[in-house]
């Protein structure tokens, strides 16, 4: 048994594989990134999310990440475009992919208001791509330096992406195994009828049974699609399901580029012969370039480097396994407290909305001022903050600072917050008597979140 596992593991790592899947992944991921970044700029989001807001919700431990001002932000996004093009075509690949990863992650760290699982996914994919030689076949780098070209790579360079995708889908599936999703068909029974004006199927979407079918199919899809993609017998059907599932969700919900990103990157599961065909097809539509005949050559890394990369990857996947489970360490209902919610592939799971009123009290006079949130926050920031305790706390600290500057010593900041979760009806969310100015952000549970009670 042990030998069997060891054997499987060794083949997972070291079997010699053709490099074509890596080259295709580089091009697929790069081109979809290029489109995503351009779309982001064209929609005016650079300004709306990173230039206009006066205040940003940074991530715990990343307070030093600040936006660069208008010029700086546009330069950063220009860099994203340039590096995306560079790593797509495989020009100065390492520099390009490392810069892309750094710039993209930096942008994401500026403000958690814009946090999306698929942005996190992009950072993870870019990070993994740093460690593989995806540019050493069918790339400009190879044209520049023909001696770079290799035809075979150890299997781990391809398998890490498959493993990452299986984890993403599986955890997304596991997170759907809840009472709300499966038994109550929430939140789809709210969201689907809202789409009843769609052509052809619009009428169906108001049927309750359809919400159940979608909920259960979605859960089963996420749970098993990774494994079905791994299996060569089921792969074609699975990929067809990937396309249908993601296009359908993209049609129903406002989820931006996510469906297309997944459709592109799951190509990695296909066999090397499929990838060779894709490359031949691309060669057919690209201008002819004379290259030296492919000699079969294998990627070699010095042992020391291999060890470093293995260590990094083991750490990476350990974190990937742990993060989605960390919520188990917190008391209370996860959807309500959102402690341990992010970075866990919890996608489209809840219909949550809130309204929050902050009050700043001068302890010297006992007088109170209610805050008009729109004076400090964009509508988007306010909406996101209203239902997420860590953001509520950050904003409360910001308000305390503002009033301290106005000359009020130790202002008391309280919040009256009403949140509705999956149609529960709004109810008090946090303890409105607690002085948030003196509460600190920690890894621990926030005791001032009121427990969720069913009526």
């Amino acid at each position, binding site marked *: 048994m042990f030998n069997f596992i060891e054997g499987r593991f060794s083949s997972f790592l070291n079997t010699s594989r053709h490099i074509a899947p890596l080259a295709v992944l580089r091009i697929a991921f790069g081109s979809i990134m290029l489109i995503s970044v351009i779309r982001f700029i064209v929609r005016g989001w650079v300004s*709306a999310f990173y230039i206009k807001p006066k205040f940003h919700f940074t991530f715990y431990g990343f307070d030093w990440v600040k936006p660069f001002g208008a010029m700086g932000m546009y330069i950063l996004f220009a860099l994203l475009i340039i590096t995306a093009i560079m790593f797509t075509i495989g020009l100065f690949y390492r520099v390009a992919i490392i810069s892309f990863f750094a710039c993209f992650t930096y942008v994401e760290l500026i403000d958690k208001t814009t946090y999306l699982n698929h942005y996190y996914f992009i950072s993870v994919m870019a990070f993994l791509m740093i460690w593989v030689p995806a540019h050493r076949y069918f790339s400009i780098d190879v044209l520049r330096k023909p001696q770079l070209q290799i035809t075979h790579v150890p299997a781990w360079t391809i398998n890490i992406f498959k493993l990452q995708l299986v984890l993403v889908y599986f955890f997304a599936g596991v997170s759907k195994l809840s009472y709300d999703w499966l038994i109550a068909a929430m939140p789809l029974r709210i969201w689907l009828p809202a789409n009843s004006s769609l052509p052809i199927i619009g009428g169906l979407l108001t049927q309750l049974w359809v919400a159940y079918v979608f909920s259960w199919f979605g859960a089963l899809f996420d749970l098993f699609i990774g494994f079905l993609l791994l299996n060569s017998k089921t792969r074609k059907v699975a990929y067809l399901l990937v396309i249908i599932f993601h296009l359908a969700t993209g049609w129903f919900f406002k989820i931006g580029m996510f469906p297309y990103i997944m459709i592109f990157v799951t190509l990695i599961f296909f066999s090397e012969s499929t990838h060779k065909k894709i490359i031949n097809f691309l060669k057919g539509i690209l201008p002819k370039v004379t290259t030296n005949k492919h000699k079969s050559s294998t990627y070699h890394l010095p042992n020391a480097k291999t060890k470093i990369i293995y260590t990094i990857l083991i750490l990476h996947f350990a974190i990937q396994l742990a993060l989605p489970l960390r919520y188990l360490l917190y008391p209370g209902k996860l959807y309500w407290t959102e402690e341990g919610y992010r970075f866990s592939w919890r996608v489209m799971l809840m219909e949550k909305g809130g309204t929050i009123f902050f009050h700043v009290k001068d302890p010297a006079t006992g007088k109170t001022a209610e805050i008009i949130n729109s004076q400090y926050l964009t509508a*988007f920031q306010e909406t996101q903050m209203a239902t997420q305790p860590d953001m509520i706390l950050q904003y409360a600290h910001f308000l305390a600072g503002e009033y301290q500057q106005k000359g009020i010593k130790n202002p008391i900041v309280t919040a009256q917050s009403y949140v509705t979760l999956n149609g529960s009806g709004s109810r008090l969310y946090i303890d409105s008597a607690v002085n948030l100015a003196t509460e600190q952000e920690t890894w621990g549970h926030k005791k001032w979140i009121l427990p969720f009670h069913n009526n």
Partner: protein
Amino acid sequence: MKKLIYAALLTAAAFILIQSCSKSSVNNNGSTDGSSFDRKAMLTNLSANIIIPAYTAFQASTVSLDAAVTTFNTTPNATNLTALQAAFKAAYQQWQATSVFDFGPAEQINFRVNTNTYPTDVNQINTNISSGIYNKDLLANLAAKGLPAMDYLLFGTGADNTAVLAQFTTDGQAANRKSYLAILSAELKTNAATVLTAWNGAYKTTFINADGTDQGSSTGLLVNQLVYDYEILKNYEVGIPAGVQSMGTTFPTKVQAYYSQMSVQLALLHIQAIQNIYLGKSAQGDGSGLDDYLVKVNAKYNDGSLNDAIKNQFAVAIGKLQALTDPLSANITNNNAAVTAAYTELQKLTVLLKTDMTSSLGILITFGDNDGD
């Protein structure tokens, strides 16, 4: 491969056990009879019986107002001033039923802020009058135009009508003041006509046909603006003047229609207009509105229906506003407790409209644009 699938199934089963013990919903949402709410019928009712009549009436009131200004400017006497003041009040009252719809044609010309930005900037108005220069597109002039600026010119330039009249007859700036008044009322008239023409033209069809709930859909636009306009009422017509945002320091002069002293009356007209949109209620009767939509999707609040909770809170908030008297500025100075009591009830309605209603309908509350996941 099989082993992997079994392992996955086992893990999945374990998670069902862990997670299924906590539930948040009680199977109460969602249409039970499976038929969908006819949003198109709601949009048709709202546009034909509420929105377009509101714009029509407002446009007519600006025509009367502009005519009254012309008469007054030609013959500035006490009778014509009183008539002009009455025409102004009628326009301001009608505006309360018009301000919500700041999307589509109205949004294109920033109708709401161009018509009703207050407190008005008296210094800017006087500068414009004495210089004789007025650029309607200048941001600083937002607070020197529209109904609030006319409110000041017609009621605030003197202690009584005799003193006001003197500003338009014997005062050194009388000629400039008259032409400024004319410019402002002409601008209002033009804007009102622009929006009404658009609604009577292609936009009505556009509005009825965009019957989804996504960004840019008519239901989405309407609900977002209804919530936004309601918050203007709560904050600017009541809260800020009553000092709730300023540690008890009150700002009685910041009320809407400070000079003509009809703030409470206008606030009541405003909230009743919003209530009518919610109910789909018009001169044509109680048509399809957001209330019917909430009933259709069986939206709950605590143990009752969300619709009942909202209707009830409208009644409570209106009751508290009715307990106030004009001039509101005097109320704030003498009996601010009653004003803040009204504010508290208005606040509760904010939660129901902004959080419960939009969430039950699956409408994104956002005034911008973004992806979700």
